[in-house]
């Protein structure tokens, strides 16, 4: 039996980090939105590590914030430890990372959605996308609801045909104890989507009171807790400690002796896992000479006993997990509360997406998050906000909002996914960005707030205030004279810092503002060089290729490039050139053909 429900402008499937940003974007841009999730209790869950941010990822969070997203404010209000990473490795690549109180984070996420005016939440499982001709027009749910909308955003995370593995045990779940979303993957396969399998894993959670803290190294947070959001004021939150311990030969021996019981090595898991975040069995097998591996013991929240064993993800049987975990100093009597497990799930090939994250297969369907073969909360949220904004722009009948590689890490992320695809769960790294000195975490607001169709007045004002403050700081610096130089020139010297100049008039400005001025000066030469490179880069980005361009009509393209162009349908000449295996001469032929079009010949 099927029932029709009231129609919406937008339907967002999935209440994870991508879904949260997507539904907030469409509703905040004025469209009546429905979020459908399998569990209202699981909105914004941190399924794996209890932390937000990190290198490159921290930049993503601040970019999401600058665009008008929610992730930064969620973590600002729920963090239980804050650190700036890699300060001394180069100010330009330092990043924020915060431990989160998982339970508060998820609760705050749900409450934020509940408070949003144009947004309704509904608990059910989507089993199919309703399509009319080549466009998505709604969803069909497990309980038989047919709900119609003008646009649909799909964010299924690890739930689409998700299957978890713990040694010989397997179950159809997206997370331990939560049922997988069955049916949708097959329904999409039938519609012609390219569906693949990927794998990821998570470590065990152990009981805090069963650990011997005298044997663990303590890892403190920074005293100065900084907000991720450009709108949050000072953060006053409890700062909890994390701990460090190490595996040893005994641990490795147990793992080696039981390696055949791992579904990863037994061939049961076919999905590709991430190389940057291997399971402990992978580390032991691939790096046999390493005597020990570092393990971080992190609290999952303020009031909870659950502690997360970062670095120890595994799919070995529970009894083996018990055995090897207890070989770690401080964990001799550890009690496991949740076991480590691997999860394998369906993902959709991101090459089937336009850079707006709209599907090339079904119009008005936007896809974001882990469904596109990425990993990480931040990567998911970044796609979520872009998919949400673009779904809303579609409803407004406007051109899509696409960030360039020179604008943001988000631009790099989506360009990589939609131009090159991915073979393993895609994680953001600073080395993926060509212009990382410019894509800093401190200037995300000046880079992105002016571009975003989602931001409100409040955020624009905040940016203006900051920019005028920075201008004032520079003026004050100019007035400062020492050794025949003014403050600006002094700051260009490597050993001089804005603090060391001790200018009393600067005290009223925030350290963030002062540091940004300082960085801009210290890196001036490099920044100018990158800006020149960007100017060159943007030229070829600006040569658009019409969506219906007929590659078959172009003489002289190599067969391989022609096929790739037809499959990926790049938006501009720059993107065409980044497709792997495409040759310089093919790009030239393409440019000439495009010029021919423009000339009306």
């Amino acid at each position, binding site marked *: 039996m099927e029932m029709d429900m009231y129609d919406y402008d937008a339907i967002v499937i999935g209440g994870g980090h991508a879904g949260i940003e997507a539904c907030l974007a469409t509703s905040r841009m004025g469209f009546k939105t429905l979020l459908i999730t399998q569990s209202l209790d699981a909105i914004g869950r941190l399924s794996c*590590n209890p932390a937000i941010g*990190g*290198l*490159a990822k921290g930049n993503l969070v601040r970019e999401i914030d600058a665009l008008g997203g929610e992730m930064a404010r969620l973590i600002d209000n729920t963090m239980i430890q804050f650190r700036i*990473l*890699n300060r*001394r*490795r*180069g*100010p*330009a*690549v330092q990043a924020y*990372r915060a431990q989160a109180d998982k339970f508060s984070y998820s609760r705050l996420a749900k409450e934020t959605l509940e408070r949003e005016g144009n947004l309704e939440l509904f608990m059910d499982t989507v089993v199919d996308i309703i399509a009319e001709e080549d466009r998505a027009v709604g969803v069909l749910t497990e309980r038989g609801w047919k709900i119609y909308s003008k646009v649909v955003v799909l964010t299924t995370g690890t739930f689409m045909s998700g299957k978890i593995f713990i040694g010989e045990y397997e179950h159809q779940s997206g997370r331990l104890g939560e049922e997988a979303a069955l049916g949708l993957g097959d329904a999409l396969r039938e519609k012609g989507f390219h569906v693949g399998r990927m794998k990821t894993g998570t470590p065990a959670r152990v009981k805090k009171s069963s650990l011997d803290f005298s044997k663990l190294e303590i*890892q403190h947070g920074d005293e100065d807790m900084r907000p991720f959001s450009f709108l949050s004021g000072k953060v006053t939150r409890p700062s909890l400690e994390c701990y*460090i311990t190490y595996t040893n030969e005994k641990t490795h021996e147990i793992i080696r002796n039981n390696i055949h019981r791992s579904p990863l090595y037994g061939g049961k898991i076919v999905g590709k896992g*991430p*190389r*940057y*975040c*291997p399971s402990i069995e992978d*580390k032991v097998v*691939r*790096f046999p000479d*390493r005597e020990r*591996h*570092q393990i*971080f013991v992190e609290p999952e929240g303020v009031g909870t006993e659950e502690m997360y064993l*970062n*670095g120890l993800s595994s799919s070995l049987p529970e009894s083996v997990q018990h055995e090897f975990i207890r070989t770690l100093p401080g964990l001799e009597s550890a009690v496991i509360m949740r076991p480590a497990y691997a999860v394998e799930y369906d993902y959709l090939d991101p090459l089937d997406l336009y850079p707006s994250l709209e599907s090339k297969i079904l119009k008005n369907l936007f896809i974001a998050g882990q469904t596109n073969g990425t990993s990480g909360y931040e990567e998911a949220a970044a796609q979520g906000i872009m998919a949400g904004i673009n779904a809303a722009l579609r409803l407004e009948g406007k051109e899509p909002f696409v960030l360039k590689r020179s604008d943001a890490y988000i631009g790099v992320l989506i360009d990589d996914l939609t131009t*090159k695809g991915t073979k393993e769960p895609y994680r953001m*790294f*600073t*080395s*993926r960005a060509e212009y*990382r*000195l410019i894509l800093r975490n401190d200037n995300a607001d000046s880079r992105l707030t002016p571009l975003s169709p989602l931001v409100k007045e409040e955020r624009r004002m905040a940016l203006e205030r900051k920019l005028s403050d920075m201008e004032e700081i520079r003026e004050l610096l100019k007035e400062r004279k020492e050794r025949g130089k003014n403050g600006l020139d002094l700051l260009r010297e*490597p050993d001089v810092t804005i603090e060391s100049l001790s200018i009393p008039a600067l005290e009223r400005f925030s350290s963030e503002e002062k540091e940004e001025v300082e960085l801009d000066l210290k890196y001036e030469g*490099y920044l100018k060089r990158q800006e020149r490179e960007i100017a*060159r880069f943007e*030229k*070829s980005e600006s040569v658009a290729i019409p969506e219906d361009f007929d590659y078959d009509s*172009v*003489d*002289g393209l*190599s067969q391989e490039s022609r096929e790739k162009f037809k499959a990926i349908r790049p938006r501009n000449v720059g993107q065409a*050139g*980044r497709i792997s295996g495409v*040759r*310089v*001469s093919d*790009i*030239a*032929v393409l*440019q*000439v*053909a495009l*010029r*021919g079009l423009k*000339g009306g*010949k």
Partner: protein
Amino acid sequence: MATYETEEKIYALATPYYPSALAIIRVSGEGSIETLSKVFSNGERLLKSKSNTLCHGYVLDGDGNKIDEVVLAVYKKGHGYTSEEAVEITMHGSLPLINKISLNLERIGFRKALPGEFTYRAFMHGRLDLTEAEAVEEIVSAKSEEAASGALERLSGNLSTAITVIKEKLIDILSSLEVQLDYAEDEILEDWVYPEEEVREIISTLDRIIGSYDASRLYAKGAKVVLAGKTNAGKSSFFNALLKENRAIVSEKEGTTRDYIEAECVIKGLPVRLFDTAGLRDASEEIEKEGIERSRNLMREADLVVYVTDGSDDNIPLQDERMMVIYSKLDEKRKGEALEFSSVTGEGISDILDAIANHLVGKKGFDGDISIESERQKDGLSECRSILSESMAHQDVSVDLMAISFQSAIRSLNSLIGDVSSDEILDNLFSKFCLGK
């Protein structure tokens, strides 16, 4: 990835890279005339020249010495083939001179044009009134040339190995920097230490390669190849077959007797001076003796002696690095074991040319210059060297800036090793470092 664009000043040889009476090098792009005037004997006049006029003088090298007497055809913006500011340099068609002037143009800021790039620019400036298809065709026909150029496998064994080692070392160093930037200090505990010894090693290898390029007589002056063998063994028919394949210039040496014939030609991109000697026959007359003596001298100085025989000789010389034996008749018994050709059909000539090029290049080790491309490659090597020594002098800069140095060092070698993608760095990083909380 290299791209076709219209911003930079470019140059290219417009005539074939073969010895000839005259050659034309074309330069194009905004500022070309001013830049060129810096190395022109009459710079003032060039700057004042009107469009579509000629200007006579000399191209000078970095020290102000004359390289060649030339005539410049000057085109101001809106004129000429590309419709950009451009100059056509008409010069003497000697390969060493062409190489020298090309090198000089790169020194002052011209980039060697990509295949078809002039046509591309002409089209983009709306200059070409051709149909679109014609312009495309020109770029496409240049493709085969591009496919053959710049690849590592074209380099000789030693050089290719040395470059591959440098590439791997640089990728390792860059990975060790990237891992510091992509993972936090609590995961990668060790601070990055400048790999001074390794960089020193890379620099010294670069120096060796650059040095041998500079010294390379093969490239600068062409290789000397002497044809030897008994009279009527087939030398002349080989020589003539070669001339048919290669547009070569033949000059008969004057003297009391016809000692040898010299021809300048290009074998697989390598400039070669080919000598057909008088033949090693028993000398009876005094005058013949003198000729044979000269032939012997020539053979002593040669980079390679190609001994031609019809198979009837009793004492065919043993092959070594300076001696190659070829047969002037096809014979089933020798098939696949020896180099042979048919003077009637020309069959086998191409294989012999390959063998000659390999012999010359392989023997010289690093002296693997086999085309004008190498000038660009050499510049890449020099640039890489200077970036590395610069980084060595500033070892205390932060890791994010150090990474930029090594990225540029790798990029400077891209004409030799191709583009290195960030995925390649990440692949290397994951294979070398055990990562992941």
